[in-house]
């Protein structure tokens, strides 16, 4: 159950990352990251007692593409077919804040100095938040790998961690990109095809139904939560604008009026934070959307194996009928069966642990979110109360 706490920790900042590596033999974190244009360089810090590493503590620079490469190699490794492969971190996207920053620069003349400063500050905060999130996602990916008994021994993973120069992974070229796209197409077509294959194991049958259902639901919820967060952010932005406008009114007004207005300027902070914690919920859901996709992939691989096995059975039957190539077919069938069994077994384990992990993660996040909500509401309440008192007293 080492991996259980890790998703929930994902949201929490670095301080938590210690306790998710409760196995101290391999501790990974990303203490630093550098953003250069559209490239983000992460500094990965590794502390280990494992003998397979040459040093016990070292750091390597990695880029986002390296992470993707690592993920891809793991996915392609046959061995891991029965495991839930941690979803690859999403591409760092600083376009949003950057664009806004640009817009802000354009609109600089149209607003007051304070307003501009505040907006800038706001955007910088947003940028920082996005940046932090990106780092975290990458960190969590590595931590999940490192905490998994199988993945931590992976050769590529070790290379990724240890090679002390830039990996400079070759970017996917157009052909490969197209190939990947094509593969995806085939996969989804295949998914449809083999969905007709009768499930032999009830556990997997149920799990499949559940996951399909759940993934669509959680996708939906994620989208909705994102929408909600966005509109919450809009509201917070409005507050910001309003406080700016109020400030400017107060600036050229007389005393009594000024007091009135400057008081309520305070209250706008509230929603900004409120939107942050909603972001938390959204993040949780988003992560699980990906995680569930990974689980679904596992199921797919298993179903594929099952289909293969059945196919090999048929071939064996045919061979027997025809009376030739029996040995080869038998071999094939045995292999498929073995593969399928193995897949089923590890899949079962993975899915159960996934479930438990999910529940714990949800619990933790929900509690945290609720507490945050309460905290913010209380803050803004006292703020409001204070403002009202000030207003009433003068």
């Amino acid at each position, binding site marked *: 159950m080492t991996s259980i706490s890790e998703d929930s920790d994902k949201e929490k900042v670095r301080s938590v990352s210690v306790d998710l590596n409760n196995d101290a033999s391999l501790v990974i974190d990303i203490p630093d990251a550098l953003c250069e244009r559209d490239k983000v360089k992460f500094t990965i810090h590794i502390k280990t007692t494992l003998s397979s590493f040459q040093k016990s503590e070292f750091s390597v620079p990695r880029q986002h593409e390296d992470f993707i490469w690592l993920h891809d190699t793991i996915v392609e490794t046959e061995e891991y077919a029965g495991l839930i492969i941690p979803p690859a971190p999403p591409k760092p996207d600083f376009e949003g804040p950057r664009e806004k920053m640009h817009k802000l620069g354009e609109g600089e003349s149209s607003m007051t100095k304070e307003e501009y400063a505040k907006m800038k500050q706001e955007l910088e905060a947003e940028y920082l938040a996005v940046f932090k999130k990106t780092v975290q996602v990458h960190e969590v990916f590595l931590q999940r790998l490192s905490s998994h008994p199988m993945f931590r021994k992976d050769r590529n993973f070790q290379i990724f961690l240890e090679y002390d120069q830039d990996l400079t992974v070759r970017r996917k070229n157009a052909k490969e990109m197209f190939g990947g796209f094509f593969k995806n197409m085939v996969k989804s077509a295949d998914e449809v095809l083999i969905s007709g294959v009768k499930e032999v194991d009830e556990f997997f049958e149920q799990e499949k139904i*559940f996951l399909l259902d759940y993934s669509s639901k959680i996708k939906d919820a994620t989208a909705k939560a994102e929408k909600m967060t966005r509109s919450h952010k809009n509201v917070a932005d*409005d507050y910001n604008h309003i406080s700016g406008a109020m400030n*400017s009114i107060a600036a050229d007004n007389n005393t009594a009026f000024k007091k009135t207005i400057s008081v309520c300027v305070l209250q706008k902070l509230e929603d900004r934070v409120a939107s942050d914690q909603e972001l938390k919920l959204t993040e949780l859901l988003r992560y699980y959307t990906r995680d569930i996709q990974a689980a679904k992939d596992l199921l797919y691989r298993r179903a594929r194996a099952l289909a293969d096995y059945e196919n090999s059975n048929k071939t064996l039957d045919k061979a027997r009928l025809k009376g030739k190539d029996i040995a080869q077919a038998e071999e094939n069938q045995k292999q498929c069966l073995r593969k399928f069994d193995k897949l089923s077994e590890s899949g079962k384990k993975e899915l159960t642990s996934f479930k438990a992990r*999910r529940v714990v993660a949800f*619990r933790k996040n929900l*509690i945290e979110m609720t*507490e945050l909500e309460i905290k913010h509401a209380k803050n803004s309440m006292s703020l409001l109360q204070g403002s009202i008192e000030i207003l009433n007293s003068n």
Partner: protein
Amino acid sequence: MAASSERSPPPFPDSEEPELLEDSDEGADAFTGTSISEMDSPSPDSTRPPKDIFNEPPEDIFSDPLSNINSEPQKKVDTKIPSPSSDEAVDLFSEPLDDDSEVMSSPEVQNPMPDLLNEPVEAPKSDVLGEPPVNNSSSSVKKAVSAELFGDDEDEEDLFKETPKVVTKKPQPSGPPVDVFTEVKSDVKVKPQVKDDPTDLFTEEALTAPAQKPPASSSSSSRTNGVHSEEQDLFSEATVELSLDSPLNDRKKKDAVKPSLSAPAASVASSSSKAPSKTLEELEEEESEDKFDLNISVTNPEKVGDGMNAYMAYKVSTQTSLTMFRSKTFTVRRRFSDFLGLYEKLSEKHSQNGYIVPPPPEKSILGMTKVKVGKEDPSSAEFVERRRAALERYLQRVVSHPSLLQDPDVREFLEKEELPRAVSTQALSGAGFLKMLNKATDAVSKMTIKMNEQDVWFDEKIQDVENEEQHMRKLHVMVESLVNHRKELSGNTAVFAKSVAMLGSSEDNTALSRALSQLAEVEDRIEQLHQEQASNDFFTFSELLADYIRLLGAVKGCFDQRMKAWQRWQDAENMLQKKREAEAKLLWANKPDKLQQAKDEIAEWEAKVTQYEREFERISATVRKEVIRFDKEKARDFKRQIVKYLESLLNSQQQLIKYWEAFLPEAKAIA
């Protein structure tokens, strides 16, 4: 302003005191006919102080710092107050008289001061010495004839005759005092016409009080300040007195006693140098207290008729203890165009005098058409509610204006069962077209008039209002978008709640599933909360801003009216100049036959110039007073609304806490 002082000199301040005296007399008479005797008793008091001043060596006045002089009459007032205060009734009447004596002294004090600055000492001295006897005699004569209210017109004429004499000699020391004097003058001027109309008198009187505030606060010499503050006490007092007495002549005496008792207290308190603003505030408070026993609510919007001829009728209920109304509570039904009609009438009558007439909500053809055509959809319900609230606020603003409340049309609007249909309010009617035309010509003339503002106060204020309107507009846009975004948020929260509920239903861990459905419920409630908050945003905040944007428009209208008055005056001035030139030509050409005619014309135009100038001064004073009042009202309104708004926010935060706290154990129960 400088021009004005040269051309038509401000009257000698003395002229105001008989008026004040007389006003208080009037008030007194209004209460009890028998009070004359009571009045007689303090009268020696009142005549004494001026004498004192004259008996005291005038050299003293000129040589000593003027502040001394200021303090002297004050002392007298202070000492005098306790003596008559043993008897309430006497107090009531003697107090104003005391103050009158203060007036008598203070203008005298004021007089030398400018002279000191610019002229040989002898000239004012003679003035001071030469005039007061007349004054004294006039006041004493008045006392003698005070049984007959309007009998003292002659005295006043005397005073008027006097004024020019003094004034021509008197140079203008500085800007601010001129204001005061001219204010006074306009009062006097107006007075004879309105004498029998107590309400107007009241408003004219009321002008003077606020008008003095700026001089006091502006950078005129500290000495003048002292004098002003003193004078102001009395003005404000007189105003308080009048505002209560004159409009409500037949009110119970008791009502009147209470405020007038507090008034002297104010005057005593205000003999300190901070006085002006303080008294003003007190005045304001008293005014507002007075106004608040009038409660108006607009309720029950009801659709009358069908199709395009349908209209909404609103119930206008009034609750009041003011005696000017026939009963304490009454209700009438009014339609929207009636409200517009009321505004038309009021603005026709009052806006040219520089009053800020609160504008009604805008016509909304689109919104109304929706209401007319649509059955029962939420947007039209919202529209109706919004309009209802706006109309209520509009009426409340109208009646909270002291002079608009006195308007017979307002009373009629509130009381009368059937109102003649307001015809000119239809947007597409001929009258509407005419109005638009008028507005267009107004706009054009506004652009052509280039007024060089001499009054710093107005200059700043106009700029302020302009800025403020811009900022308000900006803010309004923001708040509107806040409302929209919050509505959006509410919608999105609802959708999210549904989605979470679905997720909960497909979750196979029972505890988590339960928690998720709880979360859905919480989100549902939050959605409600957001919705309520959005409507709160709108009604308490956004509408407030919309109102004030409209009101600022009205304020700008006032400034425009003032500018128009100024333009009239300038035109007359130019005309006079032309006439004078013509006269000079005639004189040169030696044509005595036409000379007389030219002289007559000049006299005529001179009269016009003075009249227009006075009108301008009056409108300036009114606008000034109105703007100050508006600012006060605005600050109060904003404070009230913002507190209300913050409270609504607070409330929703409390709800939020409650919801989340209820959810917390659920989240913790997941295992």
